């Protein structure tokens, strides 16, 4: 008994060791190729910058991003307020830094949730095949044909806007998209030798799906996740802009634009310009990162 356990232990140990070795070598080569891609480097630098802002924001902001100052409303950029102030005198520079946090928590959380659900759904439909696949695929196809922003708006109006609801709604909307990618990857994998081999070994379906197939389709999932992250940022920002996303007084960039865009033509461009540049840089950064990853992994 003890011996058996010990044997099993060593087997597991060796299994991991070998796998890890492979993984390590694979990772090294990926990283080497990524570092040679200027697009990826630029993207990572931008994203890193905003991640630093999101994490260390409170130490970087010169003033509180929430404090109002009704004497200094709509001040243009000055030495005291580098990016000017908004309609109730809040410091826009501080709000731009603080605004990295809401979007960089909601969008990744939504993407992660969608990835977990979408991967599970994709594995299930791809591996099970037959009527399960047909029914679920048709359903996914129909859902994908619905205008997503309309669906998201309806759900948010019914549930009420909050960061949590926005996360759930975006996850809901992205799940079928990820499921579709995973499904086609799974179908391709099922034609390879190791899946029938595992089936012959009489391994359980769950084991085959999650332990055999999943590690092999990680690269396409990873690429899909980074691409989806870009779109999640896009969607969070758009929902905030339409007023159904993150709530005041959050310094969220989309919300900032929604609150102030009526001021542009009056000559108060700084109230929205910086938030627009910040949003644009973040989506472009994530996208360059995704593009680099895609080139290397595919």
């Amino acid at each position, binding site marked *: 008994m003890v011996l058996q356990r010990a044997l099993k232990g060593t087997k597991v140990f060796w299994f991991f060791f070998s796998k890890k070795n492979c993984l390590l070598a694979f990772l090294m080569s990926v990283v080497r190729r990524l570092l040679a891609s200027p697009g990826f480097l630029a993207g990572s630098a931008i994203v890193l910058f905003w991640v630093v802002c999101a994490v260390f924001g409170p130490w970087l902001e010169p003033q509180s991003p929430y*404090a109002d100052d009704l004497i200094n409303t709509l001040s243009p950029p000055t030495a005291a307020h580098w990016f000017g102030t908004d309609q109730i005198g809040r410091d826009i520079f501080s709000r731009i830094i603080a605004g990295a946090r809401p979007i960089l928590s909601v969008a990744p959380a939504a993407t992660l949730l969608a990835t977990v659900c979408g991967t599970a759904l994709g594995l299930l439909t791809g591996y099970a095949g037959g009527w399960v696949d047909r029914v679920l695929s048709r359903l996914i196809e129909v859902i994908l044909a619905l205008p997503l922003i309309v669906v998201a708006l309806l759900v948010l109006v019914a549930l009420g806007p909050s960061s949590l609801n926005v996360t759930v709604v975006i996850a809901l909307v992205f799940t079928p998209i990820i499921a579709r990618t995973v499904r086609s990857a799974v179908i391709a994998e099922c034609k390879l030798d190791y899946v029938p081999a595992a089936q012959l070994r009489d391994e359980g379906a769950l084991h085959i799906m999650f332990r055999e197939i999943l590690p092999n389709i990680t690269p396409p999932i990873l690429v899909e996740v980074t691409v989806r992250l870009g779109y999640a940022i896009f969607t969070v920002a758009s929902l905030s802009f339409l*007023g159904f996303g993150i*709530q005041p*007084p959050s310094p969220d960039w989309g919300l900032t634009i929604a609150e102030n865009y009526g001021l542009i033509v009056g000559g108060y461009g700084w109230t929205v310009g910086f938030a627009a540049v910040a949003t644009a840089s973040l989506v472009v950064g994530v996208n360059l990162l995704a593009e680099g990853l895609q080139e290397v992994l595919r």
Partner: protein
Amino acid sequence: MTSQARHLVGELRAGRLGRRAFLQHAARIGLLTAAPVPAAARGRPGATIRVASNVPAGAIEPLTVSEIGGLAMLCQTGEFLVVAGSDLVLRPSLAVSWQPNADSSVWTFRLRPSVRFHGGQAFDAACVVATMDRLSDPKQGSNALSVLRGVLSPGGTKRIDDLTVRFELDAPNGNFPFYVSSDNYNAIILPADYAGDFETNFNGTGPFRLERYTAKVGANFVRNEAYWGLPALPARTEFSFFGDQQPQVLALEDDQVDVIVQIAVQGAQGLLRDPDVRIIDIPAATHRQMHLRCDDGPLADKRVRQAIALSLDRPGLVHGLFQGRAELGNDSPFAPIYPSTDRSVPQRARDIPRARALMQAAGYPNGFETTLTTERSQEIPLLAVLVQNACAQIGVRVALTIEDIAAYYGTAQPGRSDWLDSPMGITDYGHRGVPNVTLAAPYLSGGAWNAAHFRNATYDRLVASFNAATELPAQRALAGDIERLLLDETPVIIPYFYDYLCATGPTVTGVAVSGISQIFLQDAALS
């Protein structure tokens, strides 16, 4: 001269009443009925006035119109018995004079002779009876029901002869002429045989006739050559509908329009600085009401409600949110513009130490958490953020929920409306020429708009007395009592009353507006 009138003149002589307040009050009780526009002040006739207006959100049906785009349409061709000007002075229109009985429960109106509708029908007492019955009948579903409830019922309007009507009220009301004036924007007089087809012909008695109306696009009007009064100056007026303020501002700056019916300070800050734009700025009773639920949680303690009211920097709000184009509010619906307002009641000002002491006394030295729910409209979300910051100073941690307007009001029934169910909320109340309507439903025990869940028998009694009072000193004395009671109880916070703003090009003259987005263009001209 009636005893009321004698008293009023005495007040004026004694210096207790300003000239403007005298005019306002004299007109209300029918003492003063002629206020003609001096002909010399009129501009050149024949212009085409182009107007930018909010798009009417629904059918132009006098019975149901409730939003500003629609009610700006009604008063282009339709006329009221009485017009409440921007100075709150009542001027005769289709009625030439009016008179209350001793306890002001019956009002008699003399009508203007030889007036015809654009469709050819004669205007007479039957038209007034039909119109008022339609507005006050619950089965007709008129939007004026909420104003006329408890004031006038179907059958209460009696035809005495062709040119005399008598209103027999449900309860005495000293301000009744306002209820049949332009202040009650649904009350344009329609022909006795009106069949619900206003949108096809805009059949009224006014100085302009409809040329064409296209829903969501615009409307053109031409001068009514057969008008009973001075003919309108403009040969035609052209309304373009806009879904939002910004394109209206751009259209004015680009000389695509001559007039914007109404602008809000938010988003028009650039326009307000523009030397080439004329701003018509009239003080109004338009306000934001922040309710504090008096029957639940920490807010049930009036010391907590007072503390929150004391945390606000009101002059800062007026300056920061309205560039000074607003008046301070003193937590009651008595706006500074009402002649009945008792202005000797001290203005509440920011006092953080006292607010903290009140919190301590109420047993919340470390504050508490609550939610402020409101609607996404104009400056309200910004006000909510400022309230949140102010509350933080006294330890009250406020979470904000900013909703679409429809979501905030819900079905407007307790239990199914965030407006009526939220512990704290901010609601917008439009301008009224007299405070009677805003004193009633939002504060009376069990009132339909009583989001604060305020119940106070003394208050209910005071309001009934105020409604019945016809004489200004009596009204003002009761107003003082009401103001002091609301200040002490603080069921609501009214931080400011903001001005009504209309913008015109530099060459436009003679545009008249009211605090409820009505625009009157018969004296408009281009110089």
